[in-house]
């Protein structure tokens, strides 16, 4: 729907434009109407953030002295571990998102004409909890797992020590494999739904005018898919970046991802570490929110248009 509106701005009827011109004249009771929804979000989400912030600057909590102190942030930001963890989290989240998005675009295009069973197949992995997936990966890929035993049995390797380490490894291959297994069907499902909503006439028109298949993909299909790609990859990135149990159980011993570091600080026996844990958690949210904002800004195409305009002017 939004795609059609964006590509055919002239189709909007008069009533629509009139409403838009009245955009700022919102009657007072409209605010009252959104109050329940807004207050729920403000109290549960905003309130939590405020309480967390107060604890992180030492104004609340069991060990609070009642004075504002940025010690927790200083301790978090000056530790080498924080930067290593941030790097690892970004690496895992960006790689997993990029790979699953690219593979899903291809898969969705392949499955476009496959009928309903394709959507059904993509939904199969959705209800499986991450913990079950982790257990499956451990059973299959750990050095004494099924795959390793089969290889030993076939005589390809002589003992479990020859099997490559695929879980809790330094490169976090196990974490990556788990996320790809879980996220590719998810992204594909979303892209399939978007693809099915795109009118085939655009592509046919382009082909009739002499565009190659490749050119048709780049200039027609991909731009029309963009909203779906952006929203799906955002969900994947946000989830993977903040995911705890997968890197905790399948990830490397050192460095740890940021959520694992937060958990470790929060379960530290020293009560003073709790404010550091909360500061770390808020930093994690901050990084995540700003990256998503940056991505949305880039994805909207505005910055590129501005550059183009400047180049033209």
């Amino acid at each position, binding site marked *: 729907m939004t795609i059609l509106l964006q590509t055919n701005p002239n189709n909007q009827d008069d009533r629509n434009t009139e409403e838009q011109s009245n955009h700022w004249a919102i009657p007072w009771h409209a605010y009252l*109407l959104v109050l*329940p929804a807004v207050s729920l979000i403000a109290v549960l989400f905003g309130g939590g953030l405020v309480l967390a912030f107060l604890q992180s600057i030492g104004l609340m909590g069991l060990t609070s002295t009642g004075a504002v102190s940025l010690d927790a942030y200083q301790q978090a930001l000056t530790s*080498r*571990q924080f930067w290593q963890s941030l790097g690892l989290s970004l690496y895992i989240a960006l790689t997993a998102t990029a790979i699953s998005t690219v593979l899903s675009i291809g898969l969705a295009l392949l499955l476009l004409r496959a009928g309903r069973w394709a959507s059904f197949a993509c939904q199969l992995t959705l209800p499986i909890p991450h913990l079950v997936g982790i257990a499956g990966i451990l059973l299959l890929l750990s050095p*004494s797992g099924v795959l390793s035993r089969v290889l030993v049995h076939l005589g390809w390797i002589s003992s479990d020590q020859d099997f490559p380490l695929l879980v*809790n490894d*330094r490169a976090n291959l196990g974490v990556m494999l788990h996320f790809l297994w879980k996220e590719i069907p998810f992204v594909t499902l979303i892209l399939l739904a978007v693809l099915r909503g795109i009118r085939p006439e655009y592509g046919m028109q382009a082909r009739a005018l002499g565009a190659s298949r490749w050119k048709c993909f780049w200039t027609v299909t991909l731009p029309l898919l963009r909203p779906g790609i952006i929203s799906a990859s955002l969900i994947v990135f946000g989830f993977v970046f903040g995911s705890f149990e997968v890197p*905790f159980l399948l990830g490397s*011993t050192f460095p740890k991802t940021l959520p694992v570091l937060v958990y470790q600080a929060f379960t530290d*026996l020293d009560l003073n570490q709790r404010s550091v844990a909360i500061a770390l958690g808020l930093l994690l949210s901050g990084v995540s929110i700003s990256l998503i904002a940056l991505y949305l800004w880039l994805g909207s195409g505005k910055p590129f248009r501005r550059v183009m305009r400047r180049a033209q002017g």
Partner: protein
Amino acid sequence: MSSFVLHRRRFLYLSAAACLATVAAGCDRPPTSPTTRLDPATLTWDEVVELARGTTVNWAMWGGSDVINRFADGWVAQQLQQQYEITLNRVPINDTVEAVNKVIGEVQAGLTSGGSIDLIWINGENFRTLRQGDLLFGPFTQVLPALDSYDPDDPLITTDFGLPVEGYESPYTGSLYVMAADTARVTTQPQNFEELLDWAIANPGRFTYVAPPAFDGSRFLLTALYGLTGGYEQYAGNEFDEALWEQNSSLVADYLSELAPHLWRGGQTYPPTQNRLLELFANGEIWMMSAFTPNIAEGITTGQLPSTTEAFALPGSSLNDPSFTAIPTNASNPAAAMVLANLLSSPEGQLEKFKPEVWGSPPLVDRDRLSPDLKTQFDQVEADYGLPLQALTEDTVPVVNAEYTTRLEQLWETQVAG
């Protein structure tokens, strides 16, 4: 279309009104009267039992072992129901620190009574944390009749990680942190850390420990500190000794770094949890590990670990690591928590969980204070126990001030793993 808009608008008005009404009603409510607090200093045991009768008790305990859960849901729940008509609600947690966090969170949020946890299975650092925040109910153990079966001068139950218990904890389980080896593959068992290093060099990839700061991993670091720097006695004081730590810590770091390349997977990675370590041992990936006696006994009894598994102590380094139960200050049912704590400390409770087919957890009671009949039963179970418990116990030493463990964890993260 218009009727739909109307509906939606009406719905929104209704929900807004409901929202405001709730807030208004909430303001109107008189403040709840403070419930009368139970004072253990003036209570008798009969009063406690009477208060607890017919209630429910919430017991937060580590829930990662099927046999322990069966013991709690089976024998303990039955006894509570039959003797006191108390219903047991087991609150399974992944790590005791979760219960500690819950209590802290509740008290911070103003819930100073009526909390969700009545009794916590606890020891060491977690006990220190709750004492540090003044979050424990007590002292209460002087009321419990079960404590008559314990030696009041035994440092094993009067201190917890160097911190005096002072009646805030009731003894629960004995536990030895020792070594286990599969004798089908290990011919000579190392007796100290030098021999352990030699063994690891001769058998690359067949030994490892849980990654600290996970509970088990931190215990291994502590045994290493004892074994490498000349024994436990120097650390036994109530306070952390900074100068001593500065002087000795580098020995531990050097040793662990030297050991790392000969560990499982070349020390590139460590098992993240105790269960994963036991799995590695059960699958034959590693041939030697450090673990707690109940895990080893349970593993041998259930057949999860090879029948050729043997436990042995590193004399003067392996740990005697008892655990306790304690009542948070905001417990909603401290009376029933005291009854449960008493049941767990009682000779009958200690005997039941000592049986290897039940759990295999070593008792803390002083057997000389028991009736001859009970004493015989304890000796009988000991004879059936798969491990030479008495001999192992003699070689173990207590756990010291938790600050050493915290420093060891930091040292491991910065100098060994990093």
